[in-house]
């Protein structure tokens, strides 16, 4: 789905995996990489990267170093590095990140702020389907 030259985190050794049938509620804080295929309600923070699978449902504000989103998120995203949004992603909330890629078909409802080194680009999308593709 994403271009091969994009530097995505290797999740094969993720420290935390939340399976499809599992629900997490509360304040979830971690130091490593996290894979979410189930549901999470509350808040999530990690010093590593997060992979949100297609079937995942997150109702939480998210803070991470990097993130790949293929599922649904209701909450604000604060990503200190690279954010990759896949075609099946649905995001309802504001996004702050350093770098971003958005696939055709992804839905973003909220404000997107990309603070890339010397640049400071800010754009607003409201209730529209993204047509940005790599």
């Amino acid at each position: 789905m994403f271009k091969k030259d994009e530097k995505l985190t290797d999740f094969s050794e993720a420290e935390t995996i939340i399976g499809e049938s599992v629900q997490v509620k509360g304040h979830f804080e971690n130091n490593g990489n996290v894979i979410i295929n189930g549901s999470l309600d509350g808040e999530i923070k990690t010093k590593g990267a997060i992979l949100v699978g297609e079937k995942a449902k997150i109702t939480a504000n998210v803070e991470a170093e990097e993130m790949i989103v293929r599922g649904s998120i209701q909450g604000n995203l604060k990503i200190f590095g690279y954010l990759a949004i896949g075609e099946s992603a649905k995001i309802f909330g504001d996004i702050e990140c350093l770098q971003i890629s958005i696939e055709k078909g992804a839905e973003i409802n909220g404000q997107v702020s990309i603070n890339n080194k010397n640049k400071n680009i800010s754009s607003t999308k409201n209730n529209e389907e993204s047509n940005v593709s790599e």
Partner: protein
Amino acid sequence: MNIFLYDESTDKYKKKIKKTEEELNRLNLQGKIIYLKNVKNLKETLLEEVNNGAKTIISVGNNLTINNVINVLANISENIPVSLIPIGPNNSIAESMGIFSEKDACFILSSRRIENIMLAKANNKFFIENAFIKNEGSRIYINNSFKISTEKNGNVFFLNISPKKYLRKELVNPKDNLINLYIKTGLKNETHISGENIEIKNEKEDILLDNSIKEKTPTIISISNKSIPFIVGKERFFE
């Protein structure tokens, strides 16, 4: 002196015991044999042996045997090395230590490679390898900050040492002060989360420690501050 603690369950395996004793003699690893079926108070017995200069405690039997032994040793201040000779079924702890047969166990005892393993605790009981409960009706709270529940029925494990067949072995380290929650609700549906303390509540099911001892819930599981020097297989490293 080596102190061999023979579990009652080993009575059924006389041939294996005889061969093991021959192997131990050949390796010059003789010692005192204590038959646990004749022991009324294991703590008093072990304390006496420790005071008499026991060099190694060898648990001969299965998971239940070693679990009973470590629950006594955890409350004794001396750090006597512990070894295992697995006899019969329910010996996953020996496998986790890199000991796969009674013959292996004799050579491993002889080579005496020691790893200090932190014991896990479920309420006031110690365990070495894992605790288990069915997830139906279970409510799990991690680090007092979030709650885990599951939609499908399956099994919940709390791992201190990685079992032989666990695919994510590298995540389970008995020296990192973390207990690892592993939930399996289907072939490809797995959850792995670690935490410093995990509370579990289940009105119907008890939690099973080291596949041997039952403990009622609510249970708080954490890594204790007690460690035991275990004699382990040459290829078994805990990092």
